[in-house]
């Protein structure tokens, strides 16, 4: 659906101010960035996490008393899918060295490195191998690789500043020093990063970076990394088995308290079955499909926070989970693109954000939380949002992509953002000539399970990698650091799991006592609920139809 006549009329106001804005940019003049103090006020007043009722204190578990979003608290304060009294722990269906839960970038990187260390690996994944947020990451991957202007030192400062200096310093140090190695590893696997003819990689700014250090592969960097890692895993089929459509729903311990596998659920036959392993890498990713505060999301269909729930039940605490990342630029028009991510690289390449009058109201490279809060402010407080056609009380602002062609030369938008260019072309919108209408969209789980720099946790044999873990990004992740996070910590968790397997002699008697205890704790806390978790899949079925679906054996959702 192309832009309506009303929108085209409004776009003229953007076009009117564009030449001046482009000229300013060319002269090196930027819109004034907020000071650290101004940032704080902006967040407290306008960021969704700070709204009354957004968070709720956890009544049970290792992080009891800590407040997280209502939607995540609901998942934590729910019963397991398994009945500890009924499950037969003697019937083991698969045995392996390392069980990787999650078939995204972190899980696959972990599997490859664990295999390299000599381990037999099983990847259990909810949907297909590679169905993950990694696949959807567009902009790029940060790493200080250009020693004449950058180093891990500056990368460290940027990461800390983006996370409001609350990040776990050791995790950050690990991430920024491992970053160049990870880029080298990906290159050696055949990832096609954008390069000059001499092999030097293109790098760009992201919001909150002081040096251009974001490496990319068009606007499908995550897809390029994911399909490369997946392809390599498929080449190692002898040692890396993949169980698709088989999400884990509960972890297994042995009598010594070592993590020893998981209960999986075959989504197609609705059977539960056991995998016994000497080590487990949890890499289930984030939780955008819980739709915090009913926000639209950029996340993958399977992003329902399963790993958080399983880890938490087993006794792993959580941190920074109160902070949800709203990506500033999600499409709000046309309707079928709603929630779709418009990569931050568009702003990195110079596109301004402007209001209904074509006025700039924020520096386009503020960290994501500040940028989102500023857009919400412009629409709710200032009242200069652009009404979204056909939707009551819904507003957006313009992301002025045509500036990029004016700054960098005609054809740049099409060349640098091929996926988005084609997508919008299909809707009859040429984004090299017309701006995009955007609004913040639920994007990333900043926090998660507690883990150390080598991926280990306080449960022996249990390792964490990627978005399911928390600490490295503090309360706000910067662009290009999620692909980095998953590859760096995926590799480290895989390496640690591989080593752990070699040291572990055997697996004792399997146990789900932790689940029994968790249920007891729920009862003592007075939590009476029919909820079970993990959720596995979100439920988007038509409520009218659902009324007529009398049985409850349907997967994923609760009736």
């Amino acid at each position, binding site marked *: 659906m192309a832009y309506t006549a009303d929108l085209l009329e409004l776009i003229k106001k953007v076009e009117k101010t564009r030449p001046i804005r482009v000229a300013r940019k*060319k002269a*090196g003049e930027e819109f004034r960035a907020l000071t650290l103090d101004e940032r704080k006020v902006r967040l407290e007043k306008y960021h969704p996490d700070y709204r009354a009722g957004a968070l709720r204190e956890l009544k049970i578990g290792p992080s009891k008393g800590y407040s997280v979003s209502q939607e995540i608290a609901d998942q934590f304060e729910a019963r397991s899918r398994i009945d500890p009294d009924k499950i037969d722990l003697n019937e083991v269906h698969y045995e392996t060295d390392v069980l990787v839960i999650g078939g995204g970038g972190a899980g696959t990187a972990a599997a490859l490195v664990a295999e390299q260390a000599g381990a037999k690996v099983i990847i259990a994944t909810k*949907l*297909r191998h590679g*169905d993950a947020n990694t*696949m*959807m990451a567009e902009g790029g991957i940060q790493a200080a*690789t*250009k*020693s004449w*202007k*950058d*180093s*891990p*030192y*500056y990368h*460290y*400062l*940027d990461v800390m*500043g983006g996370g409001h*200096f609350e990040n776990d*310093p050791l995790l950050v140090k690990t991430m920024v*020093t491992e970053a*160049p*190695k990870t*880029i*080298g590893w990906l290159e*050696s*696997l*055949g990832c*096609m*990063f954008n*390069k000059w*003819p*001499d*092999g*030097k*990689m293109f790098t760009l700014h992201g919001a909150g970076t*002081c040096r251009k250090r974001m490496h990319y592969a068009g606007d*499908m960097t995550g*897809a390029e990394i994911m*399909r*490369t890692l997946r*392809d390599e895993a*498929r*080449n190692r*089929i002898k040692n890396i088995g993949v169980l698709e*459509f088989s999400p884990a729903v509960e972890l297994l311990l042995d009598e010594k308290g070592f993590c020893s596998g998981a209960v999986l659920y075959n*989504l197609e036959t609705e059977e539960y079955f056991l995998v016994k392993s000497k080590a487990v890498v949890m890499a289930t990713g984030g939780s955008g499909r819980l739709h915090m505060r009913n926000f639209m999301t950029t996340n*993958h*269909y399977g992003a329902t926070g399963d790993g958080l729930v399983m880890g938490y039940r087993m006794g792993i605490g959580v941190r920074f989970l109160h902070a949800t990342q709203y990506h500033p630029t999600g499409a709000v028009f046309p*309707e*079928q693109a709603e929630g779709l991510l418009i990569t931050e690289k568009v702003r990195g390449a*110079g596109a301004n954000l402007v209001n209904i009058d074509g006025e700039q109201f924020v520096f386009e490279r503020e960290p994501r939380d500040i940028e989102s809060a500023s857009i919400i402010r412009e629409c709710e407080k200032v009242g200069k949002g652009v009404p979204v056609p056909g939707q009551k009380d819904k507003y957006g602002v313009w992301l002025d992509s045509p500036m990029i062609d004016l700054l960098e030369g005609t054809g740049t938008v099409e060349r640098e953002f*091929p996926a988005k260019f084609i997508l919008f072309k299909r809707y009859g919108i040429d984004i090299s000539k017309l701006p995009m209408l955007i609004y913040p969209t639920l994007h990333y789980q900043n926090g998660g399970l507690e883990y150390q720099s080598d991926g280990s946790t306080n449960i022996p044999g249990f390792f964490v990698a990627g978005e399911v873990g928390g600490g490295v990004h503090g309360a706000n992740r910067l662009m290009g650091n999620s692909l980095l996070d998953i590859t760096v910590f995926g590799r480290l968790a895989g390496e640690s799991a591989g080593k752990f397997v070699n040291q572990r002699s055997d697996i004792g008697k399997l146990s789900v006592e932790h689940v029994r205890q968790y249920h007891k704790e729920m009862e003592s806390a007075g939590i009476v609920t029919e909820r079970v978790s993990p959720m596995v899949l979100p439920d*988007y*079925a*038509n409520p009218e*139809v659902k009324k007529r679906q009398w049985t409850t054996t349907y997967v*994923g959702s609760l009736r």
Partner: protein
Amino acid sequence: MSPVAQQFTEQNDTLNEASVRTDLIPIFIMGKKYDVPSTLTIQKAFEYAGYQLIRGCGCRGGICGACATVYRLPGSAKISVGLACQTVVQPNMYLTMIPFFPANRAVYNLDELEPDAQTILKYYPELAKCMGCNTCTKSCPMEIPVMEYISAALRGDIEQAAEISMSCVMCGICAARCPAELGQYNIGIMCRRITGKHIKPKAKHVGEMIERVNSGRYEEPLNKLVKSDIETLRKLYVERQMEPHTAPEEWTPDKKDYL
């Protein structure tokens, strides 16, 4: 929708069945009729009809290739293709998703591959059976000229095959439609990985930086940062020099202490 309406499996040219909602249109999911809002994508139409998708649903954003869909419109024999999450429903479209296709995939060791046509033919001998019918190109929902990259691979122009196939989402429709039984998307990724690994020059600066990191030169400064209090960090953060947006690649900062 009424049970009676569901019994109609015949494709009609006209909108029938007056509904409560005026914006509903009939579509036929695997031959079975459902009335759905006209603005929905095929994916959301499935859900509106009452499906909980397991297969055939992934990123919901047009990049993962889980929801390959083929459909036909009334009065035409033409089979059209699209991704269910990206394609808006049309009245009386007859559709099915193809959530999986068992295309051939070779197992190989990337390190040992030579970047030439023989390599591709060795692992995918069926490549030589391509009869140039162009059905693959016509059936690509990403509008990739699939046959062009297959021809490039056959010629041994692996780099070109890699570049043309770059935006492939590996949905598998090309393979499903190919009379020569090629698994184009698997050939495509092999070409891209060979290109990334063996054809494009290596990025020297990455190797240099890895050496600097391994030499331990950043350990001391980083450990100092790790131990710094927030006030010190804030100060260093605010004072860090920004590389200008329009700066050339060779730009260097004034202070080079921590490079």
